[in-house]
């Protein structure tokens, strides 16, 4: 909706619908997600945001419609290869048993200690945490560790499903800063949130969802988008 040239399309969704347990979760979503910047999917609980993100990572498969990644249909791709290209972090940071280094080795068993230290530094974690038991990390540290772990696969995009919803204000600010740094380094990020204040703080582009449908898309400051966001705020979403 702004005047800048349209960026390359990373994901293209055409008529994507998803039915789970007999209930429609996504309904005929047509959408293009750019290969640059920080795109935020926002909507109320149950809007279908997380389900859409899972479809992008191939953890779920649309009941109908098609998703393309860099012009290739996901249905023709090896899910194991695709998932390494589309790193995903979840609402609850899941750390695996063992040390921080052990966690990074799950993503790449051949990762050297020096590379592991660089991975930690990239997400703002102290290098001396490398031998720390992962379940001893704070919530914010754990979220940064799982982000570092996801980035070990050198992905083309980072999918983040409400990564700050379980964090306090300070840790949320740290994670938001990390996401912005990654975007500035050239990694596109697609973030799911229902926090409208967060949308206004960090989004380059916003996709508004409701009841499984795509309601609108645009940049912060776009009047049409602002009215959609105000509608979400009025209907009780957290601001």
């Amino acid at each position, binding site marked *: 909706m702004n005047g800048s040239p349209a960026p390359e399309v990373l994901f293209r969704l055409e008529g994507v619908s998803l039915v789970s347990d007999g209930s429609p979760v996504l309904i005929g979503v047509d959408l293009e997600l750019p290969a640059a910047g920080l795109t935020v999917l926002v909507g109320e609980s149950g809007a279908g945001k997380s389900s859409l993100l899972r479809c992008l990572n191939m953890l779920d498969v649309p009941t109908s419609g098609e998703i393309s990644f860099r012009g290739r249909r996901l249905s023709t791709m090896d899910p194991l290869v695709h998932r390494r290209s589309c790193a995903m972090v979840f609402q*609850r940071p*899941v750390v695996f048993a063992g040390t921080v280094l052990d966690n990074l080795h799950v993503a790449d068993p051949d990762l050297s200690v020096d590379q592991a230290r660089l991975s930690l530094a990239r997400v703002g974690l102290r290098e001396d945490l490398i031998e720390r038991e992962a379940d001893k990390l704070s919530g914010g540290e754990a979220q940064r560790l799982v982000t570092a*772990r996801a980035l070990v696969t050198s992905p083309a995009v980072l999918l983040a499903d409400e990564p700050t919803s379980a964090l306090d204000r300070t840790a949320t600010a740290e994670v938001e800063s990390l996401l912005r740094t990654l975007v500035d380094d050239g990694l596109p990020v697609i973030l799911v949130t229902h926090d409208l204040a967060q949308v206004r703080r960090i989004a380059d582009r916003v996709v508004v969802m409701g009841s499984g449908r795509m309601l609108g898309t645009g940049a912060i400051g776009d009047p049409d988008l602002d009215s959609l966001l105000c509608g979400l705020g009025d209907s009780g979403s957290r601001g």
Partner: protein
Amino acid sequence: MSTIDVWFGPVPAATLPTATSDIVGWGALAVSLAFVGVAVAVAAEQRLALGGPIITAVSRSLVQMTLVGLALVPIVDPTTPMYWSWMWVAAIVVMAALTTARRVPAVPGAFWVALITVTIVAAVGLGLLFGLQIFELNGRTLVPVTGMLVGNAMKTTIVAATRVTEIVADQRDEIEAAMALGLSVRAASRRLVRSAVRTAISPQVEQTAALGIVVLPGTMTGLILAGVEPLEAVRVQLALMYVILAGVVTAGTLMALGTVDRLTTGDQRLRTVRRGR
């Protein structure tokens, strides 16, 4: 004297029971049932809601074992063709697979996984026990030995399949977090599946470790009651227990891995599983 001689060789007549009723008469059986009544009363007093299941289990075992006893009479008859015994073996294997599959209705194709698992355990176990001539192959030995092998394997397949199903339902987040890194479902669930296998086989490992201290197993006890020298009876029992242990480990591992595979879609996603039967 070989173990075959021990098992089948002549036993002093004075030490042999003359009939089943000499070991456990119907009166003794009734007394043992009275103890079950005590157990039911205790369960009722403690409000454990176990009275019904206990009575059902006892009733079923009474009917089933009586029928099995009656059916075994012609099977152990030396004049009965062996193929009847082999048919019984097949029935045991199929029933074990059916019983396992009934416990995990959320797992598609669990019957076939259990059938393959139990068949492998039975084939290898029977091959060892009869191939090494620990027992002589005939109708009197084939069915009871198969029952012991498959019975223990079935307990393990049930626990392994149930635990894997519970893990997929309860710890889906951890598995999907690893899948999101590009790991296959089997690789992503490896650590959790290991714990399921440990849970499934540890009772048999513990029982083997406690042999002779806490547990005086049935085969050995039966042989000693029948007048066989204790050390000879111990050798037979140990050989049997080791084969059973190997079968249990094999069954737990194969069933756990097979269950994970059956809960994985062709495009490497986890099927939705809900806890409970």
